[in-house]
């Protein structure tokens, strides 16, 4: 397949995976409603709606102040500035009822309208207004301006008598758009506790969001994905979302039952029955409930579609998931599958289940450990029946196998993992496009043609694990030192507004990189080579869209750094070089790794240090200084991998103590210098030669 045709295929696949954009005109015409958080306070009426219509040369403009108790001001005006005399029939001065001002009934307003361009309407009014000391003349100008993407309408009002204080500004969004519900989840995930309520809410979210981005869940403050509240604020502040809070399961099902077709009962005595129930939920649009919640959903008029109580007692997971496979697999997605692992035993944290329901996924937490023969066989069977390069969402079970065993098996089928089981609100975020016209711009520190020359120093640069979500993005210190962040490149199509959230917050010191070995987490040594080439091509396209030029690989398919090897052979390194010609460099590993190469000034470098979150600062300083003595040539390029639980403040505290020989530089500058003066030794994983017969 030629590169062009492959690129086209990728583009088609990416487009096909995107949710349909909501139909939306970009014209200033239409009905608009107030975004209160971003508008001047309207005292009594609180709310404002504006309707704009053009009829040939004329304009109809209707202000509606308030909702239940409201005041309507409807104007039909010619465009071009001709004055229209409007009789005053009500004394209400609607924008400021709490001021002692009234319109003199029987007087006349002179109103003129213009449309200076397609996106602007200007209104000028002359009228009399009465205060406690009598009537005075007043003039008021209202300018209506459509936002560049057509999502919002800004209204700025000036009056001759109001010359102090902040300007009067209203921001309006299209009526009926960007409205949702928010539900706060309790911090109780015990199977024997309130997991049933959280699972119910998550299933409700996944079902309701099939008809649009309607439900956002607020997880507890210490949720592994730290951004839940911050993204919620972002949607409200930057994307003009308004949310109505639903308190408790009763209120939630009452408000949203029209989207739900039934319920599925899981068995508190068999934890895996909840995992199966999530599969049923996605296929049948059925909320998951424990036995004690049945009266609640019955009161809402819902009927049972599946009852798993008592069905799986005494069964092992292979038998349970085989039963689910036989009954439901045919109807499940072949492009997405959920591994609802992670926290195990008495606790489950199934945040990703909303996405699995949204995508009609099969759920399991099967082991991927070879020695768990029956579960491993079923895992393999499921993965083999998925389309190549599918997305395995969620995480492995902490009680059954290791991350590396899980990712090795998924990689063997060319699939890619997007973690974790705690990934929240994806069914909502997947449907929010980036702001119109938003361009993803990385904070490059090199301009075209720049070729920084390294000195006789130790250059240090830092990369943070899981930059988008688990990492220290919202914790202290970000922006104080050059820092690179692993970016989830699938957000280009999977959650573009989330990508915008991160990009729009980035400081000049925050540099994004692509990861992890492909478009999703995979181990390249385990992936069939033909698929690896295609996966790298997808990553390349995603990196272009996100303005990324550094890519990161990691491979624990042959064990971790210490007792296995995380190195890559030359043929795989070359695949990345060939498949990503725009990349200025590559980084490899998690803990230290030992693959190093350089090609045309583009280095492929492994981590020389892993900063454990438990490592005391003084010891970390000594480690970094010791590495600089063990590696005596200058420049020495010391590449650091920072675990997500270390915040930037802590890292800066360590780097500040290294001494004058050390210099912390941005990753792109680091790689450019390393490519120019590669003092590291080229090293690949060398496979033992097979003996010839």
């Amino acid at each position, binding site marked *: 397949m030629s590169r062009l045709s492959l690129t086209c295929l990728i583009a088609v696949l990416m487009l096909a995976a995107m949710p349909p954009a909501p139909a939306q005109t970009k014209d200033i015409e239409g009905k608009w409603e107030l975004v209160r958080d971003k508008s001047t306070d309207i005292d009594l009426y609180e709310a404002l709606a504006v309707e704009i219509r053009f009829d040939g040369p004329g304009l109809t403009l209707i202000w509606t102040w308030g909702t239940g108790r409201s005041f309507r001001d409807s104007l039909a005006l010619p465009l071009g500035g001709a004055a229209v005399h409007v009789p005053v029939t009500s004394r209400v001065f609607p924008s400021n009822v709490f001021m002692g001002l009234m319109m003199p009934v029987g007087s006349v307003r002179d109103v003129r309208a213009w449309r200076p361009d397609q996106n602007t309407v200007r209104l000028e009014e002359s009228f009399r207004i009465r205060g406690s000391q009598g009537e005075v003349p007043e003039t008021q100008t209202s300018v209506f301006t459509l936002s560049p993407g057509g999502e919002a309408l800004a209204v700025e009002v000036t009056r001759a008598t109001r010359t102090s204080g902040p300007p009067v500004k209203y921001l309006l969004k299209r009526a009926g758009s960007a409205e949702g519900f928010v539900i706060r989840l309790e911090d109780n995930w015990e199977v024997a506790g309130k997991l049933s309520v959280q699972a119910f809410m998550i299933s409700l979210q996944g079902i309701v969001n099939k008809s649009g981005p309607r439900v956002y869940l607020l997880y507890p403050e210490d949720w592994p994905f730290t951004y839940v509240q911050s993204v919620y604020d972002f949607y409200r502040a930057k994307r003009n979302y308004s949310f109505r809070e639903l308190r408790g399961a009763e209120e939630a099902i009452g408000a949203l039952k029209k989207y739900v077709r039934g319920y599925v009962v899981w068995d508190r005595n068999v934890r895996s029955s909840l995992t199966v129930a999530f599969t049923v939920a996605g296929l049948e649009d059925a909320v998951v409930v424990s036995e004690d919640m049945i009266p609640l959903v019955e009161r809402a008029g819902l009927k049972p579609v599946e009852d798993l109580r008592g069905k799986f007692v005494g069964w092992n997971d292979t038998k349970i998931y085989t039963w689910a496979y036989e009954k439901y697999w045919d109807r499940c997605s072949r492009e997405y599958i959920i591994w609802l692992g992670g926290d195990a035993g008495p606790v489950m944290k199934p945040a990703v289940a909303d996405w699995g329901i949204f995508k009609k996924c099969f759920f399991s937490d099967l082991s991927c450990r070879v020695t768990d023969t029956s579960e491993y066989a079923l895992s393999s069977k499921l993965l083999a029946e998925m389309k190549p390069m599918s997305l395995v969402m969620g995480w492995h079970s902490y009680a059954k196998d290791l991350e590396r065993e899980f990712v090795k098996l998924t990689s063997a089928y060319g699939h890619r993992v997007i973690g974790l089981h705690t990934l929240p609100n994806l069914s909502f975020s997947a449907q929010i496009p980036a702001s119109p016209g938003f361009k993803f711009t990385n904070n490059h520190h090199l301009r075209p043609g720049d070729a920084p020359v390294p000195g006789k120093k130790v250059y240090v640069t830092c990369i943070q694990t899981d930059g988008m979500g688990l990492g220290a993005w919202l914790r202290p210190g970000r922006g104080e030192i050059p820092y690179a962040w692993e970016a989830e490149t699938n957000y280009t199509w999977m959650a573009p507004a989330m990508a915008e959230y991160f990009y729009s917050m980035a400081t000049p010191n925050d540099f994004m990189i692509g990861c992890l070995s492909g478009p999703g987490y995979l181990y390249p040594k385990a992936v069939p080579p033909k698929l690896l080439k295609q996966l790298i091509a997808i990553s390349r396209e995603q990196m272009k869209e996100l303005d990324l030029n550094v890519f990161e690989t990691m491979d624990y398919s042959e064990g971790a*750094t*210490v*007792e296995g*090897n995380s190195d890559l052979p030359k043929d795989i390194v070359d695949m990345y070089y060939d498949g990503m010609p725009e990349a200025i460099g590559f980084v490899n590993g998690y*803990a*230290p*790794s*030992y693959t*190093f190469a350089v090609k045309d000034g583009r280095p492929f*470098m*492994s*981590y*020389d*240090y*892993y*900063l*454990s979150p*438990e*490592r*005391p600062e*003084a*010891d970390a300083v*000594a*480690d970094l*200084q*010791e*590495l600089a*003595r*063990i*590696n*005596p*040539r200058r420049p*020495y*390029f010391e590449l650091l991998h920072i675990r997500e639980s270390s915040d930037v403040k802590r890292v800066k505290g360590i780097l500040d103590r290294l001494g004058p020989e050390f210099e912390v530089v941005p990753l792109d500058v680091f790689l450019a210098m390393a490519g120019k003066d590669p*003092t*590291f*030794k080229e090293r690949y994983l060398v496979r033992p030669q097979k003996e010839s017969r």
Partner: protein
Amino acid sequence: MIARTLLLAALLVPAGDRGEATGSSIEGVWKFVPAKSTEIAAWKGRVPEIVIAAAGDRVSVIQNWLERGQVAYADTFLFAPGGPPVSSPVRSVEWPDNWFMGVLASVGDERTVAGSWQAQGTDLRTTTVQPVLTSQGKTTVTTVREYVLGAGGSALTVTEQRSTRQTPVVLVFERKEATR
């Protein structure tokens, strides 16, 4: 490596396990006390354990790395105190002195170990010369370790000074009770 360690351990059984008096010698099995030690950046929660034994003119120092109570890696030094350095081939890439630094043991090369009593039975100093691989290639690291018995004979302090590190690594152990 583990099999070899077990063989050595069988040949050089610590005095403590032979039921002899243990309070006056560093011989014995020593359990790590992390609260009193330099943080060791352990890999996967591995915990060090030291086994010191003497037989005739030879001493063995075995540093086990225990994972869930089982020996996952063993680093063995066998030498005659006061004698010439003893060479042994490097068979594993693991460099247990620090798991999170980009340093590998150089498999196929030889490392040397020498040792001497600073105080007979209670203060042992060893010197190892270890070839290692780093991102810039091969180099050697010389490590001086001093094993000192504490007052009362129940504590062992190991001070490691690497040629490449400005500050020492101090590990404190307590005597492990005989299991028989």
